[in-house]
């Protein structure tokens, strides 16, 4: 446990010092500033527009952390052979992976907390400029926190996918490409299956529908974590749905980290 904590701390410090993180923060601050300007172009449901832009900025920042910082750090460790320095000490490969994952999760958490606070500031400024008319219907802080939590959970799932592909692929760019593909499919698989099942525009064969439904079991349903509409329109929250989605997200990440550990244990990195 001590070694895991140590690697976590080192990863976190490395990440915080990184220029990538600095760039991401600057970009996000600009996006939040743009949020105040853009929302002035709308006259109805302005709060919803603010939430859209704020969460888009959070997503972009989170994905940048995963793609540039997460994949970058891990693949550099492996391909520059820096990982030898760690695993030649009394640190197991599993401890290394868990520590790295924990460190990056911490960075993600800190980034989300900072940008979440910035989003709230831009939301507050926007509300002031629009004389309070920007607040969404039935707005409540617990719903906002729940939405942020599920947003973080979806990024955690993407991070575990990124770890898996970084370990199994030989190139950093391949890992980025695979992760992006899974991220994209994860966000759209639900809609694709729904369109196929409905058969409104195309009439696919039964085999194709079953195949797509089967595939959807392998890819994470990232759309399930997107509960922005609940916040933006003050819709009622289904606690059972939220609980199961939480279990689903942590479960998927756990399985992928386990698979990553299994692959990394067998991997010849010499």
């Amino acid at each position, binding site marked *: 446990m001590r070694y895991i904590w140590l690697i976590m701390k080192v990863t976190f410090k490395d990440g915080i010092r990184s220029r990538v993180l600095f760039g991401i923060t600057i970009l996000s601050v600009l996006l939040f500033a743009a949020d105040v300007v853009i929302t002035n172009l709308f006259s109805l449901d302005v709060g919803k527009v603010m939430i*859209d832009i704020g969460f*888009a900025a959070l997503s972009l920042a989170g994905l940048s952390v995963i793609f540039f910082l997460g994949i970058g750090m891990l693949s550099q460790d492996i391909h520059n052979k820096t990982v030898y320095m760690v695993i030649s000490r009394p640190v197991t490969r599993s401890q290394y992976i868990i520590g790295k994952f924990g460190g990056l999760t911490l960075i993600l958490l800190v980034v989300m907390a900072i940008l979440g606070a910035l989003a709230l500031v831009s939301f507050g400024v926007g509300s002031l400029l629009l004389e309070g008319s920007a607040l969404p219907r039935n707005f409540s802080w617990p719903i906002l926190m729940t939405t942020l939590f599920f947003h973080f959970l979806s990024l955690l799932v993407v991070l575990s996918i990124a770890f898996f592909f970084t370990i199994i692929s030989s190139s950093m760019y391949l890992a980025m490409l695979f992760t992006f593909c899974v991220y994209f499919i994860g966000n759209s698989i639900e809609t694709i299956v729904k369109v196929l099942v409905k058969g409104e525009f195309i009439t696919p064969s039964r085999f194709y529908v079953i195949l797509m439904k089967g595939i959807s079991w392998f890819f994470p349903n990232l759309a399930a974590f997107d509960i922005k*509409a609940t916040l933006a329109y003050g819709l009622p929250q289904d606690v059972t749905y939220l609980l199961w989605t939480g279990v689903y997200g942590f479960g998927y990440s756990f399985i992928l980290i386990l698979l990553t550990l299994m692959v990394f244990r067998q991997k010849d990195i010499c």
Partner: protein
Amino acid sequence: MLNTKDSKICLCLLVVAIAIYAGSALSVQRSRDRLDPTQVISALQVRPQVLEILSGEFRSLLADYLVLKASVYLGGRYSTPDTCKKAVSILFRQSATLDPRFFQTCYLVQGIEPWWKGIWVKKAITTLELFRKHRDWDWQPGFFIGFDYFYFLKDNLSASRVLMQTAEIPNAPPLLGLLGARLSQQGGQTKASIAFLETMLDTAGKESAKTEIKRRIEALKGVLKLERGITMYRARFGHPPDSLECLVESGILKDVPVNPCRRDGRYLYNRGKVGF
């Protein structure tokens, strides 16, 4: 180090390059000005579901962008060419599918599409049905659909059906039910339109929206006044007047009301039918 000759060549090349750049920049600017988004509009000819799949978690943001694109084009224009109407209608449909709860889209659809009349009324109703289904706490989409059935399609039965259903939504104005009941009767359409708009005026939040509704109420009151005059003219002379000015010349009206919805202030008139 560059010698004097090389420096001169470099300077000459730089001047030539700047001249070429300035020329091309001006030319590009002129071409871009012709593509001013307030003058032309285009929409991706794909089903909204395709956009939904491609946009992933940013679908709601894309919905905002699409409706903003349509708004920039529409601006304060009075007429829209048919090709642009198609593009605007597609943008509305795409935005509504991506986020079927966004009231800005719903409001714009109702404010623009059915007023083009013809095929656009049914297209607007189809889009508005998405909002009625998803904004189940809001009576306004149902009210808009009821209005379109009544005013544009002259389908009082469908209008009353939608209005009656909408009146059951909590916080819906009680007048909706009365209007629905009234629409099941024949006649009195202009009066009922004014009543519709007066309901909207009571609930409109923004001053700009109120001004627009007031403008339309004023226009409809003018229509009502002219329709009454035409009825009297018809009763007196046995045929409708050739123009609205005939109503003044025959002493039925003191003056022809000014249409606040058109720049020339005139009402549209054709064989006894008045429009604005």
